[in-house]
């Protein structure tokens, strides 16, 4: 019995030593982003220098599921300290108290220096990206426009890789069905409009491979599994520049959006989270990120520091903006859950 008591005491001691060690490493920040080439660019531009400056970072990946962040916050077990989110997630999360309200004074940053800085109170703009389609020039002829690429299965037989999400897909489907870009959200705001978009997607349903993580689109294209794939423009850029793939981006109806840094509500490491966001919002570091991926920095001060060679590959290049379609993040922040549910039911049928 005495031996048992000794053992028990030793275990207790070990336990307290462990928690002391955890307290020391309290600033081991968990930063979650979208994986693949994008997270690599963030690693090169922000995470590695941040670690070199004496901090600790644990990286995590997700595919943008707001439910994962909500579940943590609702369970009061927040393990992600900083999350890279898209605009609809930032807005939806802000409305329901999933994210901390950003104190720009504490960040030591000037909100007006950031493109879109006043869109939400709960996140700091980080980059501008765009959802686009692309094809392999060695296998596929250039399509006339985006709609021909996605919906004309006669002219371009074969599969298409689309994101397993209603975002942008529904808008593209409506425009392909003849809705004027300006009316897209008026139509999509009604049940009939949603059904109309799904009906248009029905015409290619059996020709679609649905992807979930951003790296899959370029991968399916590279494997020859699909004739057209959608993804975020930086993922295709990375495949073209780094992997020397003969891909070409279709900029027609590109759908630009922001990515943001947000802090899940209730993280115990909020000070570290603020420190990281300040660090990652430095104009030079944000300009550096463009060395690895073709996303435009949201910090206006970064513009003069960007290598001019990448400018034509950014979504904001004038040539790429000719037929741009701007998605409405407020619409998706409000209706995203409903549309995702409807979309998932449609997928399963």
């Amino acid at each position, binding site marked *: 019995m005495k031996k048992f008591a000794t053992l028990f005491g030793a275990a207790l001691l070990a336990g307290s030593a462990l928690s002391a060690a955890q307290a020391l490493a309290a600033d081991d920040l968990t930063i979650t982003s979208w994986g693949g080439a994008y997270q690599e660019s963030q690693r090169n531009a922000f995470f590695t220098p941040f670690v070199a400056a004496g901090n600790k970072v644990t990286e995590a990946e997700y595919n943008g599921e707001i439910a994962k962040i909500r579940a943590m916050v609702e369970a009061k077990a927040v393990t992600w300290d900083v999350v890279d989110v898209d605009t609809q997630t930032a807005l939806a999360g802000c409305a329901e108290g999933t994210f901390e309200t950003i104190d720009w004074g504490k960040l030591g940053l000037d909100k007006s220096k950031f493109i879109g800085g006043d869109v939400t109170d709960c996140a700091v703009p980080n980059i501008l990206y765009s959802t686009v389609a692309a094809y392999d020039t060695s296998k596929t002829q250039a399509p006339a426009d985006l709609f021909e690429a996605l919906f004309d299965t006669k002219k371009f037989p074969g599969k298409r890789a689309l994101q*397993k999400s209603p975002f942008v897909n529904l808008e593209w489907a409506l425009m392909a069905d003849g809705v004027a870009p300006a009316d897209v959200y008026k139509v999509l705001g009604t049940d009939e409009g949603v059904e109309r978009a799904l009906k248009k997607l029905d015409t290619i349903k059996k020709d679609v491979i649905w992807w979930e993580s951003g790296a899959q689109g370029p991968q399916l294209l590279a494997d020859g*599994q699909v004739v057209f794939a959608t993804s975020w423009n930086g993922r295709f850029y990375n495949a073209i520049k780094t992997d020397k793939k003969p891909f070409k981006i279709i900029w027609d109806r590109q759908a630009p959006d922001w990515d943001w840094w947000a802090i899940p509500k209730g993280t115990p490491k909020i000070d570290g989270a603020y420190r990281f966001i300040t660090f990652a919002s430095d104009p030079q570091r944000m300009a550096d990120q463009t060395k690895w991926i073709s996303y435009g920095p949201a910090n206006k001060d970064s513009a003069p520091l960007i290598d001019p060679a990448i400018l034509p590959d950014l979504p904001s290049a004038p040539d790429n903006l000719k037929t741009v379609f701007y998605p409405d993040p407020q619409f998706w922040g409000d209706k995203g*859950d*409903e549309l*995702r*549910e409807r979309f*998932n*039911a449609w997928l399963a*049928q």
Partner: protein
Amino acid sequence: MAMAQALPNDGVMRAADGTPLKVALARAERAEKLKAMALVLPLFAFIIFSFVVPILIMLYNSVYDPDVAENMPQTVVALKSWDGKDLPPEEVFAAFVADMKEAQRNKQTALIGKRLNYEMSGIRSKVVATGRKIGSIEAAPYRDQVIAIDKVWGEPETWATIKRSASDYTPFYILSMLDLRQNPDGSIEAVPADRAIYKSILARTLGISLLVTLLTLVLGYPVAYLLATSPQRTASILMIFVLLPFWTSLLVRTTAWMVLMTDGGVFAGLLHLTGITWFLNLIGVLNGEPQLFKTRFATVVAMTHIQLPFTLLPIYSVMKTISPTYMRAAKSLGGTPFYSFIRVYMPQTLPGVAAGCLLTFILCLGYYITPAIVGGPTDQMISGFIERAINSENNWGKASALGVILLTATLILYYVYNKLVGIDRMKLG
């Protein structure tokens, strides 16, 4: 009687101190029994915490529904006296405004909206928008001002939905997983066809599992026979072919199938080389090259491959115990090989067949990763939808209800199986 000091003469055997021998023995054995119990206690505790408690929580979550009751306490009380016919009275609107202001302050409007949206598609955004604007309403009359924010509050159906979800417990999740819903008057009806997906998902899950079980049986039975009747040396080499894949991780094997099944991949190349593609095109089954990736075909093939050893091994171990003398006797009595096999050998293997098939079937019901990787959206089974309810919809009620449906289906099948085959006849070796 004068036998006060003597022991009662009732025929009971007694120990030296007068206690009945039975009691004394039980007392002596109790300590031993407790020690023996202590040995199974860890497993017992493990099962309670890892199996019984989670299942109870799941059952509870499938009917527990506190979101509306917690976040709209005054509205819920005010709605109690409403008859459900016309619009609710002014008090309800007053309570609603107070509740919504409180919810807006605590950023809980989205939670209310999320819950109501399960029953009234499209209302989530309206609740959140109403929460943003509710601060502008300062004084009575409330009704018209609330309806002015969004006309959804002017529809009795909205209030009926709130009233229905006011209780802490609801049949809603279980019903909706059976493609049913409650009408405002409490009667139960089918949901519109474009939303009715869960019955077909359940049927799909059962169908795929049954098909895979049959395929593993058809493929595995002859192999098990070969293994059981071959000479030891040959059998052990053959056994390696069965066991090697069995020891390989499920994820690795599924990913391998993904590589084999890609369009223009190894499998398609094989079909092309052997002329099967040409033949299928000729008879009109196929038009061009086969599309295998992300299809039901790929799902069933990969699952059959993974499940094969689970069906095969119990059959094999039962076959090993069948003495060859039975078959010799049957033949010597004039039975043809086929007749002897059907009438004498096969019935003896049934306990193994039963065990192997039940094992495979129940494991198949829970398949998640394989359909997700090699199947398309219409090949996903119940587990895939449970994952989605938790990871991308944050809907624990729905996930629990799907779990309950799956558990119930499994138990019913087990019961039917027990009636048909008899669980005591099952043998794993």
